[in-house]
């Protein structure tokens, strides 16, 4: 093992008993036998079915809605329109929950005066069968006055563009604009002076990039069941990334108190950020209220594509200057992101992440958040970062070629490290970006020979990772087994990591620990599952709750032995009396069996707002083969390297890297929303919106670099988001290597690449 490799082994594996092992996940058997209940799997007695009426127009004023024919249809039990929901104010935000406008959320859940995209919900109906509900939806007559629509950011920014919102004035520009615009805000980040920096450069490269709207593509459509009693107590069973998020958002949209809504999380069939908001739940609650019966609502795949989730497409302009030795002297980035129908694209996060892997003196970054007649964008894995990184990492590749430099060496020359001031402001603590570059350089993939029409690309990426509010209860059962309850849906194996961390603290075998995703009335508030925060923040809560339980068990042992509690130590899952061999060690089961005699049931709890999240960096190597007759790109080898802090359950960490990489590959070469001239989505199904299938991709090799995060007791860094950031440029850089063509527009689909190949002939 070389010295550098030894450095990568920063973590002393020997110091943990359970962390770093690969037990079978606690919810696994349910999920391989079909027993696990997802959003659409619940049935209640007397339940009826809801269906949504959606706008067929990209932009139109609603002149009137006539529900008479639908209401008259036998079997129809309730109809709701926007008029049945409270109108919220533009300033209606919940501090602490999310920087989210409930005014916009409410109008996205159900349109009021205008529809703003193809698929925008206009009304909803509930009937005794799915078929009657669908038939009733077709009987609802909406009279529209068509308005001109605008689909692309750069078009929407033009002064004569159709306006989506008469009350939107661009924030972040001085003097404050007096005319409304589709640009909701301008953000800027500046370091040093780019003019001086570019003047000092020997080589300057710049490119423009365009990307399309893409969807998270979770396989499980949005689904919920809602009931509400005559005295206004609602229950919602649904698939989401956060039961407390669903409760807070539904309460606000329906004008209810949170205590009157109980949300029970089902298993979640993928989210990737797309289930961090609500669509159906308020409709189901209001339909259930009017019908007096439970209402189930399940989206079709067409509805999922037309009305939920996508992430922003947009335009980017990146310029980087460097000395001959590869030292970057200046870098600038301008981003225009399409937010969809309401403001709030992740453009600020794109701005903050694009140059974050590099130690730069002179940086200028500007971003514009632009509304267009597309569905309101939702978070998608590292929101905002992949498109920014596509621009930056592609431009760096061009720069490396111009300088005649190895692209890893160029990145090493400029890599951010501990103490580096990130382009978005603060200085980094201990990070592992350089370690990922070293691992890439030393990986056999980097030096493997390539065949004809093959090429290799490399790209890196950064994500903040976040902490936030998390709660956990660790309950010691009477036989010494343990329940660990948290408030975060398990989207990719987090029950296993919660159990492993609890096992580590308690010294109890993981087989005796049962992790539980609790409903909103069984555990205190937790922020949603997202931002790569659960293993970090909720893990921290679990660790503290387990420590609290250990403290209690030590006190019980002290009582049993009639010694002072500081005479008791917790060792390998047992209370041990120190400085005496008079007392036999007491196991958790021994102490639990005596709980009633020593003060009652035993549990530990922790309710925290976790800080100290450690940033994550990744570097990916991609090999492609290009069919020059068809323009088809095949990824033939792929290696994802990432600083993961400490891998609690390495299999699920590898899984995050592999899944993120393949989503990024899909973004690079297949996936895009295609609209017709009227602004109607043309490919709202998996046949035409093609996510990667098993035969499209190779094995995804992973290297887990472990540079522990000093902000977590076990060194955890979030890992879920970083892996979707590098692939877009890694693929494009590999294509450039194979063909000599710099593809700046995504997706690099066969027709687009073939046109470029033909043009270059």
């Amino acid at each position, binding site marked *: 093992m070389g010295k550098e490799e030894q450095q990568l082994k920063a973590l002393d594996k020997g110091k943990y008993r359970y962390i770093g092992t690969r037990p079978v996940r606690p919810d696994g058997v349910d999920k391989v036998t079909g027993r696990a209940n997802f959003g659409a799997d619940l049935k209640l007695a007397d339940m009826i079915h809801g269906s949504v009426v959606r706008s067929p127009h990209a932009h139109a004023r609603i002149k009137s809605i006539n529900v008479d024919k639908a209401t008259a249809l036998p079997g129809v039990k309730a109809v709701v329109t926007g008029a049945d929901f409270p109108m919220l104010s533009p300033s209606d935000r919940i501090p602490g929950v999310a920087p989210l406008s409930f005014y916009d959320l409410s109008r996205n859940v159900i349109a009021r005066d205008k529809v703003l995209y193809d698929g925008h919900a206009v009304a909803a109906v509930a009937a005794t069968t799915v078929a009657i509900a669908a038939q009733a939806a077709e009987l609802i007559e909406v009279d529209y006055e068509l308005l001109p629509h605008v689909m692309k950011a750069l078009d929407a920014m033009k002064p004569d563009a159709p306006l989506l919102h008469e009350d939107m004035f661009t924030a972040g520009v001085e003097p404050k604009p007096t005319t409304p615009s589709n640009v909701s805000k301008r953000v800027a980040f500046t370091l040093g002076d780019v003019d001086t920096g570019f003047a000092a450069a020997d080589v300057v490269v710049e490119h423009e990039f365009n990307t399309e709207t893409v969807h998270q593509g979770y*396989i499980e459509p949005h689904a919920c069941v809602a009931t509400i009693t005559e005295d206004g107590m609602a229950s919602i069973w649904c698939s989401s990334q956060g039961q407390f998020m669903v409760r807070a958002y539904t309460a606000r949209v329906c004008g209810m108190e949170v205590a009157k809504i109980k949300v029970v999380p089902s298993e979640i069939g993928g989210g990737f950020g797309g289930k961090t908001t609500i669509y159906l739940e308020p409709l189901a609650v209001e339909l259930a209220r009017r019908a007096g019966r439970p209402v189930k609502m399940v989206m079709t*795949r067409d509805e999922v594509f037309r009305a939920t989730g996508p992430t922003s497409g947009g335009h980017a302009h990146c310029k980087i200057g460097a000395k001959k030795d590869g030292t970057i002297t200046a870098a600038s980035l301008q981003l225009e992101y399409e937010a969809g129908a309401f403001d709030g694209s992740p453009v600020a996060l794109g701005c903050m992440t694009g140059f974050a892997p590099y130690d730069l003196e002179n940086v200028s970054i500007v971003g514009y958040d632009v509304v267009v007649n597309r569905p309101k964008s939702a978070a998608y894995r590292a929101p905002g970062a992949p498109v920014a990184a596509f621009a930056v990492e592609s431009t760096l590749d061009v720069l490396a070629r111009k300088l005649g430099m190895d692209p890893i060496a160029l990145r090493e020359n400029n890599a951010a490290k501990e103490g580096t001031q990130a382009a978005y402001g603060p200085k980094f603590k201990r990070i592992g970006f350089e370690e990922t570059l070293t691992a890439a350089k030393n990986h056999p993939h980097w030096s493997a020979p390539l065949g004809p029409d093959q090429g290799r690309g490399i790209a890196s990426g950064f994500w903040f990772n976040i902490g936030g509010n998390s709660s956990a209860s660790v309950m010691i059962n009477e036989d010494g087994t343990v329940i660990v309850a948290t408030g975060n849906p398990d989207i990719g194996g987090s029950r296993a990591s919660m159990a492993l961390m609890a096992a580590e603290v308690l010294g109890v075998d993981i087989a005796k620990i049962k992790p539980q995703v609790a409903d909103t009335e069984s555990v205190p508030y937790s922020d949603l599952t997202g931002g790569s925060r659960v293993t970090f923040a909720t893990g921290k809560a679990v660790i503290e709750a387990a420590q609290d339980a250990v403290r209690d068990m030590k006190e019980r042992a002290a009582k049993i032995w009639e010694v002072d509690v500081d005479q008791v130590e917790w060792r390998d899952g047992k209370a041990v009396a120190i400085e005496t061999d008079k007392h036999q060690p007491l196991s958790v089961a021994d102490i639990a069996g005596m709980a009633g005699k020593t003060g009652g049931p035993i549990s530990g709890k922790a309710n925290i707002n976790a800080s100290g999240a450690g940033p994550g960096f990744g570097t990916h190597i991609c090999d492609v083969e290009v069919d020059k007759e068809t323009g088809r790109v095949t990824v033939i080898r792929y290696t994802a390297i990432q600083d993961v802090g400490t891998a609690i359950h390495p*299999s699920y960490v590898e899984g995050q890297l592999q899944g993120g990489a393949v989503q990024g590959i899909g973004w690079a070469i297949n996936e895009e929303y295609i609209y017709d001239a009227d602004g109607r989505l043309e490919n709202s199904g998996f046949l035409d919106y093609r996510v990667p299938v098993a035969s499209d991709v190779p094995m995804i090799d992973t290297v887990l670099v472990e540079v522990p995060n000093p902000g977590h007791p076990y060194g955890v860094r979030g890992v879920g988001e970083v892996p979707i950031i590098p692939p877009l440029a890694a693929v494009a850089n590999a294509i450039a290597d194979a063909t000599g063509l710099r593809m700046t527009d995504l997706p690099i689909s066969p027709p687009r690449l073939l046109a470029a190949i033909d043009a270059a002939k």
Partner: protein
Amino acid sequence: MGKHHVSATVNGDPVEFLCETRQTLLDVLRDELNLTGSKEGCGSGDCGACSVMVDNRLVCACLVLGVEAEGRNIETIEGVAQGEKLHPLQKTFLEDAALQCGVCTPGVIVAAKALLERNPDPTETEARYWLAGNLCRCTGYDKIIKAVMNAAEEMRGA
């Protein structure tokens, strides 16, 4: 509109159900027979989450009508384990962490079982093409393919 009376075999048991003409086999399994292990991801045969066997043929249950089940032998994910004993594929999916959210898993396991019954020793490429009709958005397929290959090896050895 009257309902049709249908008799079929599901996971080895005789079943009878009433269904409308328009109901798919997937609707019948989930709504009439309470077998919710088969999932609806698209309703158009693109995602494979509703993969089931009909007379030993792998199909998307969303593309088959309930009435077409008459006299047929249907096998779903609920019939893959035998009592307490998991199928080797179910075991390797757990051991190899071949699922994240798990919603595609029932369909993938049913499809992979059909593959191994036809081809006990598939190459990686054969496994990838066979499973190309089963979308997974979480795993990137790596661990799924490994689990299928490992189950194949175990079953050949057994």
